[in-house]
């Protein structure tokens, strides 16, 4: 038999000024099952909580209804008080007499009636509450960081420094990402390599970090705290344990005319190569599509010159399986190439380059050793045009969003150009200058005022080549939209930042959502910016949307904080308010018929297919199974289940039904 205690709070005068609390307590005392009903000035005060605790013990209560403020405010308080008195905390409910009653109505009989109704509703509900135990999930205290750009590096180092193991997986032969390709960084103009390289080395040396380069994620199973990840380690054709990074193989390789990816095609590299001098790890890989041996069966010069005997032509891809507790996605972004722009010649003009190529030209370690020389003939461009928003904010091109970093790096490019070509002129076509950030606007002002960048507000409709010059045709909207034609020597397009190639496939492997532009989606745009909808999987950096370095690093540290929190306990405790599929004795096993409509509505991929097998291993039935580690308790599955085989703790069918019943039929 239910023994319910009802506690009506005056909340000073917040409730009692409008609601006759004594009358409500008196009415509640007469509800079936209520054995104790009192009113008190401040239920949430220490004496108030003691009242509840004492009543539980004295009257041997099986359920408690505290009728006070919103449960969104004090439910945890009273549940704790109940637990201290020995009652299961989930046997406590709150009736919202303040926000939903006393504060919004006038003092009259109708308001009292409503208060009594609300209490009755919760009394009926609490009678049907189940005693629940918090869900405990073990946690593997190893984090997987996917992507070794600046975000991945930051996240990995922060997690490792908190004392947890980290596995970092990078697709390319070296970590460093796009940041390692940059020349200088805005708004301070410090050298990108100089600040990044030490961090890359730290990653390699940190005993808590295990680094897999030239590797990709093959599959991910499991749930928060308990993922099983398969990593494909692509064959480098090098025995990493033997290679000492002397680099002799790369200098002796006869096949040197392959486009250099790191230099974005503006230089050549051998078939066996280290992507760039500061690469981490400093171990070469053989490009099998280019290597003479792989193509013709002859050569093997690298094998002959290698004194460490590290070359292994027959090396195979390796699949490594690791358990991890949390995953950080830091896969970064990419930019549109110049061939995306019909109006700028479909990429056919060599001297129209993208921003990243300009970074390489301006970089001291780049193909021109830091001199600004145009790709077609190596001349120093005296007139250079930068086109901001190339592709971005252009619905006609399918990219509605702002790529965010271009305004700043274009200003930086103009400054770097002026520093290197003193007699040159830089023109910048722009839509708006978006320089929100610490010292950002000052930086763009500097480009205009000190380094004489000519900003033209308008868009470029066309670029064509004539007598070795690039004719840039645009409009100056601040000068009455008149046509501007500039005979430039070189054009730099600040092309739109887009999702990394392969992001969609990775999202599908990880079961996380992504937007129409293939950027990963955060769980909540304001309050959960680094979480995904899948518990235990986090996002940092430009894989979420275009981001600059400080933002990426901040997000990465945020992710590291989240993961460290997760790892701070050996078990994960979760509210047990989750959905469950009923179980019956054989031969039914469950009233679930396995139509799996619940599976398609679950936003968390928490519903799995459970197979019931007989003794001989024959499949008897397929049932829905809700993974308690993943279920977040929305209850959408409950409402779509036709046979009412799913129920959700805290909001069970019988609880909700009796609440409605209590309001109307008494």
């Amino acid at each position, binding site marked *: 038999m239910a023994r319910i205690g009802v506690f009506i709070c005056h909340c000073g005068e917040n409730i009692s000024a409008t609601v006759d609390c004594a009358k409500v307590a008196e009415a509640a005392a007469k509800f079936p099952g209520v054995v104790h009903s009192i009113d008190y000035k401040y239920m949430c005060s220490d004496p108030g909580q003691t009242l509840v605790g004492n009543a539980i013990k004295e009257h041997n209560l099986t359920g408690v209804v505290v009728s006070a403020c919103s449960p969104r405010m004090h439910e945890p308080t009273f549940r704790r008080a109940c637990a201290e008195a020995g009652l299961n905390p989930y046997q406590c409910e709150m009736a919202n007499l303040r926000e939903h009653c006393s504060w919004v109505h006038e003092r009259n009989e109708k308001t009292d009636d409503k208060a009594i109704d609300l209490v009755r509703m919760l009394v009926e509900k609490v009678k049907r509450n189940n005693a629940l135990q918090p869900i405990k999930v073990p946690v593997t205290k190893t984090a997987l960081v996917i992507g070794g750009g600046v975000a991945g590096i930051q996240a990995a180092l922060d997690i490792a420094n908190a004392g947890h193991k980290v596995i970092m997986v990078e697709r390319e032969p070296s970590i460093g990402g796009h940041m390692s390709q940059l020349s200088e960084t805005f708004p301070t103009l410090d050298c990108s390599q100089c600040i990044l390289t030490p961090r890359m080395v730290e990653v390699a040396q940190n005993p808590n970090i295990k680094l897999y380069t030239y590797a990709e994620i093959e599959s991910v199973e499991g749930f928060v705290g308990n993922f099983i990840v398969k990593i494909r380690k692509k064959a480098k054709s090098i025995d990493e344990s033997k290679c000492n990074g002397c680099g002799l193989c790369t200098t002796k390789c006869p096949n040197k005319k392959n486009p250099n990816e790191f230099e974005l095609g503006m230089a050549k590299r051998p078939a066996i190569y280290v992507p760039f001098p500061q690469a981490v790890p400093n171990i070469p890989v053989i490009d099998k599509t280019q290597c003479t041996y792989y193509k013709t069966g002859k050569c093997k010069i690298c094998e002959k010159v290698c004194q460490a005997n590290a070359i292994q032509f027959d090396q195979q891809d390796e699949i490594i399986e690791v358990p991890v507790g949390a995953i950080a996605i830091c896969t970064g972004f990419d930019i549109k190439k110049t061939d995306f722009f*019909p109006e700028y010649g*479909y990429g056919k003009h060599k001297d129209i380059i993208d921003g990243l190529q300009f970074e390489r030209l301006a970089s001291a370690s780049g193909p021109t050793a830091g001199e600004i020389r145009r790709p077609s003939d190596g001349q120093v461009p005296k007139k250079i045009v930068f086109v901001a928003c190339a592709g971005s904010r252009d619905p006609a091109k399918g990219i509605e969003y702002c790529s965010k970093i271009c305004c700043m790096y274009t200003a930086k490019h103009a400054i770097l150009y002026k520093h290197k070509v003193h007699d040159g002129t830089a023109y910048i076509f722009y839509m708006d200058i978006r320089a929100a950030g610490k010292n950002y606007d000052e930086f763009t002002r500097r480009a205009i005022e000190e380094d004489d960048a000519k900003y033209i507000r308008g868009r470029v409709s*066309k670029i064509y080549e004539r007598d070795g010059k690039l004719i840039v045709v645009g409009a100056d909207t601040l000068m009455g939209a008149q046509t501007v034609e500039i005979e430039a020597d070189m054009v730099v397009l600040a092309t739109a930042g887009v999702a990394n190639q392969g992001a969609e496939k990775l999202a599908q492997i990880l079961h996380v959502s992504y937007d129409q532009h293939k950027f990963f989606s955060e769980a909540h745009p304001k309050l959960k910016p680094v979480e995904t909808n899948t518990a235990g999987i986090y996002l940092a950096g430009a894989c979420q949307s275009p981001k600059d370095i400080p933002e990426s690093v901040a997000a990465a540290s945020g992710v590291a904080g989240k993961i460290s929190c997760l790892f701070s306990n050996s078990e994960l405790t979760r509210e047990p308010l989750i959905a469950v599929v009923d179980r019956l004795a054989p031969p039914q096993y469950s009233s679930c018929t396995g139509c799996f409509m619940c599976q398609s509505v679950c936003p968390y991929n928490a519903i799995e297919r459970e197979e019931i097998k007989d003794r001989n291993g024959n499949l008897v039935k397929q049932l829905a199974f809700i993974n308690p580690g993943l279920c977040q308790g929305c209850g959408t599955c409950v409402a779509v289940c036709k046979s009412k085989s799913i129920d959700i703790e805290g909001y069970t069918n019988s609880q909700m039904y009796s609440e409605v019943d209590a309001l109307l039929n008494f």
Partner: protein
Amino acid sequence: MKLGFYPGCSLEGASREYNESVMAIAEEMGIELVSIPDWNCCGATAAHNMDKELSLSLPARNLALAEEAGLTELVVPCAACYSRFCATQHELKHDENLHKKINGIIEKEYKGNLRILNVIQFIEEFIIDKLEDKMKFEINKKVACYYGCLLVRPNKVLNFDRTEDPQTMDAVMKKLGADSIDWAFKTECCGAGFSVSFTETVGRLSGQIIEDAVHRGAEAMIVACPMCHSNLDMRRPEIDKYNKKKSDMPIIYITQAIGLALGIDRKKLGLQRHFVPVKLNDFKPYTKKTEVENPQKMEVE
């Protein structure tokens, strides 16, 4: 072979030579072009600015007539007519109610199954493969192919070639042995809308086109639109005035170029009708290559 044919007003008037050259090469290739019986104006110039229903009804009636005549392909050499026909087909395909309404206005059942071909599509589909057998000369000249606006825009309606820097005409001219130059004004406006009212504007807009082609050494300009032709040819005095220099680069239709390669009589191609004399001659006699070259197909956006 029989194909439908819509001449439109230009081909019966100012651009008679276009009609003549289309007919001449079709005849040479053994293709019969059948005019739509009782065809009417396509509504290109005035209607689509004034009255949407009228601008759709005029082409729709022509299309319905073509369907009634049992035609499945319709060759529309004039770029303006082509644009209106395609726009009409597109609009009616995507708006059922409008389709019903227009059918009511024209009092005919237009079904929308007709394939509308511009002159380049006509050449690509029915002529280009037979050229090798019939070619007598190579057009061994530097030419600039000029597409203008209506042939390639808007892409989502026409779905033909790429909007910027189109390539189909260049491919045809290369097949004829010409050196078709890469230049910047292929789809720039020629000023056709002001052909009569503001000839100075035509002089400026067409002038830039002529100037760039001449500057890059083109000996002739190849067009596929009567409006482009009349502007670039007939308005040459205004053009020369704007450019402050005389130019004698002839403007010829792509069909005329094919006719020349086929060795068709110049009069039959109407070359004598141009304002800027077509002096092109000394073509290299063509001998069929034994080795079949693999014609690289252009990627069309």
